[in-house]
């Protein structure tokens, strides 16, 4: 199983790092792509990942209000929600996509998100 994670550099990537340095056990299916900001994530990147055979795509960024660039994740939130609602029409089960917000200090929460998402997609296989 191959899962792709698009993570913002400032919050979620640091949060994932935190989970690692804290030695929290996580499933190893997620391949992380480090992005400057969730606002940089073109929805086509996510669709391309699915097209190339990804089983699931996880997007995570700073909590709304905490964006390093002030408003990047506000734009992202609209795009990602639209994409989430369009996936069934493209023929991709909506369980295969999730977007969430994880801050740099939430290592344990990140591990939980990865755990839950991996489990969710695995149950579809």
């Amino acid at each position: 199983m191959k899962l792709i994670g698009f993570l913002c550099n400032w919050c979620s990537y640091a949060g994932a790092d935190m989970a690692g340095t804290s030695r929290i056990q996580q499933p190893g299916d997620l391949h992380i792509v480090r992005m400057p900001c969730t606002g940089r994530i073109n929805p086509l990147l996510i669709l391309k990942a699915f097209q190339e055979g990804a089983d699931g795509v996880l997007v995570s960024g700073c909590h709304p209000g905490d964006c390093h660039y002030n408003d990047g994740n506000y734009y992202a939130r609209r795009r990602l929600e639209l994409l989430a609602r369009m996936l069934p029409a493209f023929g991709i089960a909506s369980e295969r996509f999730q977007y969430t917000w994880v801050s740099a200090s939430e290592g344990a929460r990140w591990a939980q998100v990865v755990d839950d998402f991996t489990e969710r997609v695995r149950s579809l296989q």
Partner: protein
Amino acid sequence: MGTGRGRFYRKGQVPPVSELKSKIIEALDEAEFVLGWTATGSGAAAPARFHNAGEAEDAVFDSTCVHNLAVQLPRLKDKTVGIVAKSCDARSIVQLAAEREVDLERVKLIAVDCPGMIDVKSIRRSFGFGASIEDDGTSLRIASAEAEREEFIVAKCRGCEDRDGGAGDPGNHPLREKFYSMSAVERRAFWRDHYSRCIRCYACREACPMCFCRDVCIMQTRDPHWIGGGVNSAEAEMMQLIRVNHLAGRCSGCGECERACPVGIPLMLLIDEQNRVIQEMFGYRAGIDPEAKPPLLSFNIKGDIWEEE
């Protein structure tokens, strides 16, 4: 802020078709030419440009004038032109104005009351190429026999809100019910099956009034490499994903992509769904108000509409 489409098109205030020629001649006072339709020998009207009163004599408007002529406007930006437009075409013009691709001061709009367009292709499929088609907007005769008009109307006209007899539920694609009764896996297979017929002619893009990029279209570039050059269902799928994404919050649902497709891929299934989702999420429809803020170019700090549900 305008009252939306009403500024350009209002039922009962449009000139009868008999006045079309004089309206075109009137528009030519200021316009370099007028975009409209002319009759052809094949029984279906074709788009034309009228430069003077003599040419305007050939102008027609009937129920085969299905094309959305607004597709030509972005490349005529530096000219003052007239355009004969149905209500759906008017919505494209409003959306082009919203994106500063059309200057409404330089477009002389000749609005026509549309009875719903006849699907000439499907009639010919059922009755043969030579079958005569007579239609006066209320009753249809095919090969000299009475036919049920609503059955032979173009798909997008069935749900039209602006014509008499329209169902008033735009976006209700004929295949919608069947499509959503399938599982996600079956829907993907459904698309792959349809996309396998794609010949990559780009007609869907060229017929679309909103696809006016002057940059090189990413469906054709190899840098960035979003898509390969192959003609197969995988590349065709990526093409449509690109197209749908780039039309988010911009498409007025004129149906030209599906009509132009030579291999009959039901492209409006995707587009209609996206328009429906955008209306549900943001209460926004493209092509209504040229001053409205596009939903994907703005945000709401306090939380978005769908989160309050």
